[in-house]
Structures are given as C-alpha cells and as structure tokens.
C-alpha cells in the first residue's frame, strides 16, 4: 500500500491536466496516462475558446509549465490503461505503453521528418491533410518530441529517419510494454470524441463534399491547421463565404446521443465569428431547435445576434444534399417562424456534432459507466470533466478541482480519508 497520496489520472486533456497539477500542488504524487502522443486533448485542437475568443494553447501552456516544474507529476504519453483492480487506497492498474520510436534525446529539429519518405493522414486535423510519418503532432505539442508512425514508415523509410537524426533519438527497436501501477485513487478524465457524423445518414456527411463537422471547422480556422487558418471549403479550396451551421447534429436524439452536448450552440456562435472576421461580406446561418447558452454565455449569444450577417432559423435540418452540377450544398428545414419548409443553398455546411464520451466506444475494465458511456463515481474512482457529463472547458476545470478533493480523501486509506 502506498505510504503517500498517490493518484492516477487517466487522460491528459484539460480535465486530466487540471486534476494533476491541483493534486500535485497539495503534495500528492500523480501519474498521468495519456493515449495520444501529446498532452492537451481536445482543447489542443481548438482554434479559440468561447466567450473570450482567446487561443486555448495559452491556458494549456500554463498547465504544461506547472507539470514540468512539479516533481510530483509523472506522465506517460501513448499509454492506455488496460484494467483497474483493487479498491480505495490500493488499486492495481495495468498500463500498456505503445512505442513512439523516438526517445528523450529528441530536440524536435525536424531532420527525421525531412528524411522520412512516407506520409500519413493527419488525424489531429481530422484527416484534412497529411503529415510525414515522422512527425510532431502539432507545432506546440508537449512533449516536444517527434513520433514515428510505424504502420506507414517501415524498412528504408524508418532507416532514413534514423540516419537523419544527429542526436540518436530515433529508436526503432522500441517495443510495446506493460507497466503496473499501485495507486490510492483514480481520476478518470478520458474526455470525449466528436460524435461520428457518418452515422447521421440524412445530414450528408461523407456523401456531400462540403459538409464538415464543428471540430473540423476549428482546425480549418486555426493558424496551425491544414489551410493555415483560411476557411476554405474542402471540395475546391474556394473561400467559404456563406456557411450554414446545423445544431443538434446527433445530440438530443434517441438514435444517436440522447443528451444535450452543452457546448455545440456556443461553438457554432463562436465559429460564426471566425468567418465574419475573415470576410466582411461573409454570411452565417444557424439552424437550431433552441439556442442553449447557459448563464453568462447568453451575452455571447446577444453579441453574435447583433451581427446582421448572422441569421438564425428555428428548425432542425433533416436533409442535406449537394446541388446538382455544383459543389454547393442544399439544406432543408422548416422555418418555424414563417411556417414554411425552406431549401437554402450554402458554400459549406458545418454539423454541430456533439460529445460522445470516450466510455461509449472504449470502457476501462474496473470503471463503472452509465448507459451512454459516461463514467460514474465509485468509492476511490472519480470521473472529471466531460467523462462525467458534457461540459465546457471552464466547468471541466472546476469539476476537476472537485475531483481532486475527492481523490485526496480516498488516496491513502480505505475510505477513512485524512
């Protein structure tokens, strides 16, 4: 049994990082397990936060710095928790470590990528472009270490990467490994995935060229994204001037996600500002059931509503097709205010897809989940942030701090707290 508070944090996104630094700064020992090759999770993919519209990387960097300077925190990237057993105060956790093929000698000099002959789809940009198979996940990635994707870069390609590295950082002999950890309590912060838009058969994603998701829009608008921040539609690279936002794409729908994803209304409102900033003539239309901007976020809604080039149509979109003979997109909805079925043409359509909890597609043995895949609190195991409920970044941070308190009280003893 550990003689100090030792807490395992599963997931190194915004909630996991907040949990880790808050717990570590009380003196607890924290281990963070992250499945990606970088920390920061979904927030790292965002162009801007609402409502202040500042870049999220600022907030992440503060946390990265706190992690770097705190000896109580260790973290593993490219690692996945396989199972959890034991009980409060004494959990045994097995963790699978996947090989990065790049060791700590890496200085992120880019020589391996320049030498690399293979390319891979860039999942950080939702496949909208490619990277070399030796790559840095994104330019501000933490840790600043390259990754070699062995499924694309083998044999001569892998050798070329290795030969190009002056620092002996490429290690092609790395093997998957398993470690066993003994911890007192666990915070599950595995976060969320964008709901799979392919499942929304009537909304055209994957069939109609210029239908994208809101998370793709974040990457399109980001200076580090596939178009260097210019919002160009996928089919022909034409600047998208007239964009529709389709709210509740999969959320609040028994056949998909039966719950409200909380952030999509604000995300779409925010994304209208991306387009409007790029071009004075540009137009945005939001199709909605009802605009949900809780609390102070209502002001953000009012601000966007004041823009005459942003229109709101009350009525859910249930049909999206490509215009015959062009790449434009025809969207059908009932405009409930005029009581007419309307068919409108847009350059591009953004589906405001919701949050599917990571537990919906992959459950950790030993953690309890509800029917939608949200993790449930259990004595000694606490979900934080979007693992528990859909929430925005600010609430995730608050929720994570709350999870720290609960985890600390269980970490060192079987239910007695201290």
């Amino acid at each position, binding site marked *: 049994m550990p003689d100090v508070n030792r807490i395992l944090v599963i997931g190194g996104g915004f909630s996991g990082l907040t949990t880790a630094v808050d717990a570590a700064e009380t003196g607890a020992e924290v281990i963070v397990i992250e499945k990606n090759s970088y920390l920061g999770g979904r927030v790292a993919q965002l162009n801007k936060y609402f409502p202040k519209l500042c870049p999220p990387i600022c907030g992440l960097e503060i946390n990265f710095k706190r992690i770097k300077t705190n000896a109580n925190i260790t973290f593993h990237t490219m690692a996945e928790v396989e199972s959890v057993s034991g009980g409060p105060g004494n959990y045994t956790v097995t963790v699978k470590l996947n090989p990065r093929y790049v060791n700590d000698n890496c200085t992120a000099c880019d020589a391996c990528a320049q030498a690399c002959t293979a390319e891979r789809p860039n999942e950080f940009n939702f496949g909208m472009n490619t990277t070399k198979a030796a790559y840095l996940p994104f330019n501000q990635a933490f840790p600043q270490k390259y990754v070699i994707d062995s499924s694309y870069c083998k044999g001569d390609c892998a050798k070329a990467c290795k030969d190009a590295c002056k620092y002996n950082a490429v290690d092609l002999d790395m093997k998957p490994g398993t470690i066993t950890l003994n911890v007192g309590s666990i915070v599950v912060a595995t976060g969320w995935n964008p709901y799979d838009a392919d499942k929304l058969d009537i909304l055209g994603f994957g069939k109609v060229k210029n239908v994208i998701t809101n998370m793709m829009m974040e990457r399109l608008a980001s200076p580090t994204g596939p178009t260097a921040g210019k919002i160009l539609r996928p089919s022909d690279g034409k600047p998208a001037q007239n964009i529709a936002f389709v709210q*509740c794409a999969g959320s609040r*729908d028994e056949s998909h996600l039966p719950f409200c994803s909380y952030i999509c209304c604000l995300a779409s409102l925010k994304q209208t500002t991306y387009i409007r900033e790029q071009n004075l003539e540009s137009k945005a239309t939001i199709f909605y059931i009802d605009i949900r901007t809780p609390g102070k976020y209502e002001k953000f809604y009012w601000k966007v509503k004041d823009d005459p080039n942003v229109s709101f149509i009350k009525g859910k979109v249930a*049909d999206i097709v490509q215009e015959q003979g062009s790449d434009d997109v025809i969207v059908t909805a009932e405009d409930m205010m005029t009581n007419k079925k309307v068919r409108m043409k847009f350059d591009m359509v953004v589906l405001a897809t919701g949050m599917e909890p990571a537990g919906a597609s992959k459950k950790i043995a030993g953690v309890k989940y509800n029917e939608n895949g949200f993790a449930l609190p259990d004595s000694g195991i606490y979900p934080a942030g979007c693992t528990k409920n859909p929430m925005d970044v600010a609430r995730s941070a608050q929720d994570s701090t709350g999870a720290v308190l609960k985890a600390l009280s269980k970490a060192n003893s079987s239910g007695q707290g201290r």
Partner: protein
Amino acid sequence: MAEQVISPDLNFVKDIIASGGESLKKCYQCSTCTVVCNVTPDDKPFPRKEMMYAQWGMKDKLVSNPDIWLCHQCSDCTAYCPRGAKPGEVLNAVRKLSIRHVSMVPLFARIVQDPKLIWLLFAIPIALFFVFMPHKSLEFIRFDDKMVYHMFAPAEPHMYAPFVLKMIFGLTAVFSILSALTGIKRLWSGMKAQAGDVKSGGNLTGDIISSAKTIFAHSKFADCNVNRLRQWGHLLLVYSFVGLSISGIWALIYSYLFNFTGPYPFTDPMKLLSQASMLAFIAGIVIILYNRFAQAGKAGMGSYFDWIFLTIVSGIGATGILALALRLANVSAGYAAFYLHVVFVWLLLAYAPYSKFAHLFYRTTAMVFARHTNRES
C-alpha cells in the same frame, strides 16, 4: 404576430394518448418530421404543427384539419424523430378522433374504436345473422351433394335465405352510405370553417378527378421511404376491393336479370374477376401485415384502431378462402366458415365510415379540399 387565445381541451389530449398517441408529449418541436415528410406541402407543412396542436389540446385545429388526412402514414417522421414522439402514430390517433367527431352515429364509432367494446363489435353481427337467418340449427349435416352457400346453412334451409341475406346487406349498405355522406359533409364544412376565407380553385369536378387519379395511381405512397413496400400492398387491396365490388354487382345482375344463381363455374368471367381479386386481396393483406411487423421498429406498432381494421380485413380473407376450400372439398363445416365470412364482411361494410376504412372517404375529401383551396396541386 396576432394575439391568440388558446383554450386547451385536456380531454382531447387524453383521448389522443389513449388512442395510440402515448408518445405525444415527447415532442420537443424540432421539426425533423416536417422535413423528412415527402407528402406535405412546403407552405404550412405538417406534422410538426399538428404535434403542437395535439400537445396543447387544440381540438378545433385538428379534427377539421385537411392536413391530418393528407398524411399517408408513411412513418418517415416516426423513423427519424429524435425523441421517439412518433408523429405518424399521433396523427393516426387524431384521425381516429376526427372520424368520431364527424360521425353520424357516434355509438358506432365507439364500438369499433374502443378496445373495451370488442365483444360487442363481434356480438352484433354474430347475433344478427343467427337470429335473422332462417335456420335454427348449427348441426352441420350434409344438405346436398352440392354445397350452396347462399342457402346459408345446411340444416332447415329456407328458400328465403338468399333474400334475407341480401336485405340485411342492402340495408347495411344504405346505412353506411348515409354515414359516409354525413361524415364527408361535416368534414367539408369543418375544413371550410377552419380555413377561413381561403381562395378556392373553382373547378370542384376537376379537383375530384385529379384526386381520384392520384389515389388510383397511389402516387403519394410512392413518396414514402420507410414504408415503401406498403405502396404495393395497399394498391393490391384497393384494386381487389374494386374487383370484388364489380363482381358482386355482376352477380346480382346475373341472379336478378338472368336468374342465373351460384355457385358459378370457375370459367365464368365474373367468377374469374372475383378469383383474381381474391388473389390480389390475399397478396395485399400479406404484404401489409409483413410490412407492419418488419417496420414496427421504425414506424411503430400501430394502435388498436389499426389492428381491429386489419383483423376484419384479414378475417374476410381467411374465412373466404376457408369457405371456398371446404366447399370444393365438399365438407359441410364450410357453412360455419361462410357464416363467419358473412360476419366479417358485414363488419367491414357496417363500420366502413367509422373504422380505419373511413380513410377512403375522408382522405379523399381532404385531398379534394386541399386541391380546391390550392393547398395541393
């Protein structure tokens, strides 16, 4: 926007819920239903607004609303409803209440619509034919070498049996026609009052002809997605009813004008028509029933109102085939099958303007009205 005072009729809401629309309150007015509906006009589309009227108990807006009848129960709305509010089932329940609302004899509507009165529904014709038909025995002994169904029963057959049978059906048909005409008149004036001063298209005959064309071509059904198969089942049933009606009248002509009575040989053109119709009827009902079960997950299971009607229609088919088979096999139990057949046929005829069959009259009326007021072209 003009101010409107709404007086909700809570009993009407309860009636809808009790009639198969129990999912009504789940609707959150997103209008997915209206968009996926291929049958609705673009202007003031349905069924989203009907769901709101139904939730709010706005009976007047619903019972005389042509849109509830323009709906063909494709159930595309139900399949795509994100809340499981099943607009298709709710509108079906509303139609049932609309039938009751315009009915000439509300008691008849109740008997066929209320599951608690199912015993009465069947007891009436069973008793009717038992009491009025001129036989007093149910011992099915062999009457003759040849079984003759219009003599109705093998024991103590009566020369007046065919006449009494025709009298009962004749009077029932008169009652049904009167009921349907009354209902059509009430529905039409209700729709006219609801519509207010809508410009009418003028040519009523033209509107009737174009509606009839749509109905006989089943072109509205072709717009359905989920219940695509139903188009063919329904089409076969409609044409088999037409065929059976024609052969029925033909048989009357034979017996009264030519004194040529049944059973008719299978080579007779009238008999050929009725046999072809019977086959279409069987195929139609099989397709409809299969589709009902196959699509229940997407389209909903339907209500008592649907199933009692399907039972009557299937009952006609099943007892008809059974009676025919037994007659050909010369087994006198065929008379019992024929007795039940007559019971089912009477149920269909007597309750036509009160059961789900009434859609024949009221959907047609609504389609004509919609064309007449330029709601539909």
